[in-house]
Every structure is written in structure tokens, then in C-alpha cells.
């Protein structure tokens, strides 16, 4: 293999289940003063404090405090950005923090919403809407929990 040939093993959203013995210790960081015009993918964890105008794929967990405009695939996701426009697929958990407006559809196992989600949520496990949560979209979930004050504008389907 030539030195400039691309390795094929980097994380693609294949949907395969990560083995419990996998220990991911590698972290990639896109700092707040950095902008990527294209896609980024990693076998490790990823912190996006800057802008990514493209798709983001992480075999590990992802913290999004910057902006991502595209599709996001990861293990678990913490969103704490003022506004984000991205469709999300997370193998495990998603947390949308208070003050965050997430515009896009979310597919995950479990999700906890403290901010605003504008889009449909599909969870194979639980959807938890905390008191500050606003969801403008439909929710499909196995279980749903809502705190007093949470707003859900959409249809709910329990599966």
C-alpha cells in the first residue's frame, strides 16, 4: 500500500455494535477558532468546539459545543451549542443541554432533553424530557418520561 493511500478502517456508520472490550482513549478536537469545510471521521472520541460544514462520524462519543451542518454519527452525544442544524444517529445516549436548539432528526437509544429539539426523535430506549425541554416534532420511543413544564408539540408513539 502506498503511503498516500487511504486506510479503509475508519469509522463508518455501519451500525455494528461496539464490543464492550473496546477502550477508546483517543480524542480529536476541533477548537473554537477552527472551521472544517468537509467531513470528519474518527475511531476515537471527538469534541467539536468549532464549525464543521459537513458530516461528522465518531466511533466514540461526541461533544458538540460548536456548529455542525450535516449528519452526525457517534456512540453517545452531548449537545451544548446555542444552535445546531444536524441530523443525528447515536448508538447510545444523547443529551441536549439547556439553552441548546437542535434542529434535525434524532435516532438514538436514549435521549435526555433539557433544551429544544426541532425535529423527530426516534429512540429504541427511553426519551426523557426535563422541565426546560421543548420538542417540536414527533416522538417514537419504548419509554417516555416528562417532567412538569416540559413541552411536546407532536405525536407520540410507544413501541
Amino acid at each position, binding site marked *: 500500500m502506498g503511503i498516500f493511500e487511504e486506510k479503509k478502517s475508519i469509522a463508518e456508520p455501519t451500525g455494528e455494535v461496539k464490543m464492550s472490550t473496546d477502550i477508546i482513549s483517543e480524542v480529536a478536537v476541533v477548537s473554537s477558532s477552527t472551521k472544517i469545510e468537509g467531513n470528519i471521521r474518527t475511531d476515537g472520541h471527538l469534541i467539536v468546539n468549532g464549525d464543521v460544514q459537513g458530516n461528522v462520524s465518531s466511533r466514540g462519543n461526541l461533544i458538540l459545543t460548536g456548529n455542525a451542518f450535516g449528519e452526525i454519527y457517534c456512540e453517545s452525544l452531548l449537545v451544548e451549542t446555542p444552535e445546531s442544524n444536524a441530523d443525528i444517529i447515536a448508538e447510545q445516549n444523547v443529551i441536549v443541554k439547556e439553552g441548546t436548539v437542535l434542529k434535525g432528526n434524532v435516532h438514538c437509544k436514549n435521549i435526555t432533553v433539557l433544551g429544544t429539539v426541532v425535529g423527530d426523535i426516534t429512540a429504541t430506549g427511553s426519551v426523557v424530557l*426535563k422541565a426546560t425541554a421543548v420538542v417540536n416534532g414527533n416522538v417514537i420511543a419504548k419509554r417516555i418520561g416528562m417532567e412538569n413544564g416540559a413541552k411536546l408539540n407532536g405525536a407520540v408513539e410507544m413501541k
Partner: protein
Amino acid sequence: MSKYETQEIQQEALRILDEYDINRVQEGLRVDDPLEGIVFIQNVGEISKNVTVVAKSTVVDGDITSTSPLAIRGTVNGNIITTSDIGINGLINGDIEAENIDFSHAAIKGNSKAVRSVNLGSQSVVIGDISGNKVTIDGKVKGNVLAVNSLYFKSSALMVGSVTAGGISTEDGSRINASITLTNKESEGFDDSEFDLEV
């Protein structure tokens, strides 16, 4: 829905709320295995807040622009521009512009331009042009090198192409197959009188 079922759902909802309590995550306590990872990388994020790190297994297909330092250990298929420094220990298919550039175990297919210094380590290969104020080469270069001030070939250097520099020095062992142009003032402004033979 019976009263019993309602109570059961409420209890389940409370259990779920406890299980995924965001406050516990923020305190750095172990809540669930996947979330433990989030706490871990939050800590890493605090450490490297202003540095963009393209980790070893990371591939960026696109251009990167930044005003902060970059550490590239993975692969970037695109151009990289930063007004700060860049350290490269990976693969780049694209052009690089930075204040200072340091290549270590790097493979570059593209042009590298630094405002100040370029340092090419012994395990690095560049196919493309290099320019900077001060350039040090201990790796392999196929292309044109411009060093406004000084150019230093260390013992492992292998250079094919052309060289333009204010001054050049080479160590024993360096292999250079290049046309060389010196631009320093000391090498200009002489005339034939300098070669007068006075025995």
C-alpha cells in the same frame, strides 16, 4: 388506563430521569458507561481547549482554517490554513499555510508555506514545495525549497529539486540533487576585480 398502570409508568419515568440525570454527568460521576466517556473527553477538552487535534485514527476530507494551533496526527485530505503553528505527525494531501510548521513522521503531498520556520524531521517525506524564513530539512523532499533567510540540511536529508535561499549549510551525510540559488547580499554585488591575481 388503570390507576395501577399510570403509577407504574410514573415510577418508570422517575427511574429513567434518575438514571440519566445530567447534573450527575456534569459532576463527573459515573452514570452509565457511554456517558463516562463523555465526562472523560470533557476533561480532555478542557486541557486542549485552544488546540485542534486531528487524532491518529481521524480523517478530515475537506479544508481546515483556524487561528489557533493545530496538531495533525491523522489524515487530512484538503488544505490547512492557520495563523498559528502546526505540528504534523500524519498524512496530508493538500497545501499547508502556518506561522511555523513542524513535520515529524509526516507524509505530505502538497505545498507547505510558513511565515517563519519549517522543520522537516528525519522520518518525514514531502512531495511539493516548501517555503519559509528559516527551513531545516532532515527528511526527504521532492520539490522546490525557498528559504528567505537560512536553509539547513541535516545529516538524513534527501533533496531533489531546486533550492533558493539566503544562506545554505549542510551536514555530512545529507544528499542533495538540486539547483541552488543564493539570494543573500554577500553573494551579490561583486565584480571581476575580486578575482585579480596579485602574486
